[in-house]
């Protein structure tokens, strides 16, 4: 059912005003069942399988079961996202397992300076040059 929540692992993000999955879902699908204190995906047929909820869940309580319309059962693709890399484990229906690790960012989260060390550039509102140009472009701006 695209993303689903494992009852045993979900703690409803305890005292937060909203759960992490509620915060992040780009399609507003994750909600908290306040009686059970568990999150759930309210409209699985609108889920993009983007894994934003899976990646952000602090207790690894969310997984994805592939769209049943066209995927046989048995496969699991699960990420572990750290501050600078993501590790994927891919479990096949035939039980074979593959693992991959990829970098996700080269600078720590929260450290971004918009101008990134480039000269901010012109003060001229009417110029076609944009912020940090021409230095960030590395060459002169194209003209007809």
């Amino acid at each position, binding site marked *: *059912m*695209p993303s689903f929540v494992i009852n045993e692992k979900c703690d409803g993000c305890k005292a937060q005003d909203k759960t992490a999955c509620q*915060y*992040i879902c*780009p*399609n*507003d699908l994750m909600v908290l069942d306040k009686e059970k204190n568990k999150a759930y995906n*309210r409209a699985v*047929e*609108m*889920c*993009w*399988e*983007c*894994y*934003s909820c899976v990646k952000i869940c602090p207790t690894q309580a969310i997984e*994805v079961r*592939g*769209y*049943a*319309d*066209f*995927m*046989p059962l*048995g*496969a699991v*693709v699960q990420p572990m996202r750290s501050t600078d890399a*993501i590790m*994927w484990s*891919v479990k*096949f*229906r035939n039980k074979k397992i593959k693992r*991959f690790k*990829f970098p*996700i*960012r*080269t600078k*720590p989260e929260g*450290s*971004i*300076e*918009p101008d*990134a*060390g*480039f000269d*901010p550039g012109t*003060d001229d*509102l009417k110029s*076609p040059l*944009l*912020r*940090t*140009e021409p230095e*960030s*472009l*590395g*060459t002169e*701006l*194209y003209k*007809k």
Partner: protein
Amino acid sequence: MNIENFETIVVETDLLILGGGMAACGAAFEASYWAKKNNLKVTLVDKAAMERSGAVAMGLSAINLYLGLKNGKNTVEDYVNYVKTDLMGIIRDDLVANIARHVDSSVHLFEKWGLPIWKDDDGNYINEGRWQIMIHGESYKNIVSEAAKNALKELGENGRYYERIFIAEPIMDGDRCIGAAGFSVRENKFYIFKAKSVLDTMGGAVHVFRPRSVGEGLGRSWYPPFNSGASAYFTLKAGAEMTCQEVRFVPVRFKDSYGPVGAWFLLFKSKATNAKGEDYMETRAAELEKWAPYGTAKPTPANLRNYLMLLELEEGNGPIYMHTEEAIKKLVAEIPDEKEAKRKLKELESEAWEDFLDMTISQALNWAAHNIEPENTPSEISACEPYFISSHSGASGAWISGPKDLAPSEDYHWGYDNMTTRKGLFAAGDASGASSHKFSSGSFTEGRIAGKSALVFCVDNPDSVNLSNDKINELKQRILQPLTTFETHKNYANDEDVNPNFIKPKMFMFRLQKIMDEYAGGASVNFKTSKPLLEKGLEFLQYMKEDAEKLAAKDLHELMRAWENVHRLWQAESHIRTMLFREETRWPGYYFRTDYPEMKDEWKAFANCRWNPETGEWEMIKREIKELT
């Protein structure tokens, strides 16, 4: 829900950025800088959380637009010619050139902000194809949105962003856009944003046509299902002229999960064949001559590659396979040393999986579910359903003013870059038309161009805008009406979804998708349509417009769904009307007019449209193509 309990919040700003995707982030980054210099306010409104909103929410495995101007790799003219060929001659050279001349700057910023870009031993970006560079892009959107938020922070109190606010309607004062109205999807709050200029960057449209998968897989559209036509609705309702509303995009992707094929075709040099192993790009090469000069140019336009594949399927020659196994074998065979070849195989395997895991995780899951290892087994590819996305190989969006120094004449330039034909209303990303192939980097870049330009409009028009309380109340009643409708009638029937007094958003969407699929050339009819079919479809859309007044919502989430589908309906109507207007077939792999099966010289022109807010009538406008190169 009783709408009497809804608080009304009025936010006043100078520049209002609608959307939170790549174009919106580019606009926030750029406008903040200029706003600080001019002591102006910038406000951004996103329907989701910027960290993971818009089409790049999941990440990307490549940046599809980078010219390498500083190394003399390509020229701006090269790019314009490439895009023009791909779109069968129907593009605005000035707009494409404007994005292309700035885009490298954006990519260099992304890298400095921390986006890992693949590099060779000499420190040069690794190209996937001529214009595409490879990235480790799982956190692409996280990085770009952080830069945008930090740019807004530089403005202190004058820079703000709102998340989880859904924008339903533009606010107009005559021919000037003065803001937008919407609601929180989390609290009972109705929002009015008053602004001196408004930038529409709310993405393209999905779920206008019936998807191929209609169970859980409904959501596995190639472009995200949360991009629901808000951009096009906003500019249409404002009375702005639109362009290329007929130029949908039908991507060919790995079947069902719609994983990307770019790395396979371009980086791994893979081939696609029919079930008999025939390369239809070769066996059907003669067909391409009918679509010259575009059909005979290289690379073959995306829609024509689709078309040749569709012809194979019509003749019963499916399934169509991407021969991943052959491509990998060939790449490994190029390495004589056995140990080195083994290492290469491992590297290619990792690259192949990362391509999916970075941007279409569902495709990795699909491979695992079918026990597919790309080095051993080929995979099926297929045409998706039609989408509206001008940042890729489609072109639908608002007709906007080009830059003064590049625009060929006054009808392409009327004062402010990226301003629509309505004063103070700007568009970028999927919201602006006839400037295809901007992709993530170009959308961000166009957001920058439009953000600066819209800020200049604020400087030139410093007087605050007026909006009466009556108008605010009228908007509130109308936008929240689906809640009222549900509240009024919910007790009549014992099923909250089946009630003769209203229609719920989900069924409304299904009705729209069925009409569009069957009459307007959807996937189930192999993208074929004709005047009688389109006219019938248009007739059925009129019933939908009437029934849209009876949309009902039990909660805020459904209220958002109700408005998303009103937006889709307008996208659909402008699409049908423009396909009717253009009496030819120009993009046969996107849609085919069976009554006009050929491309015509007289239609080497823009097919524009405008909904007139004064009369409620649609106007169709043919505009000349003026070339830069």
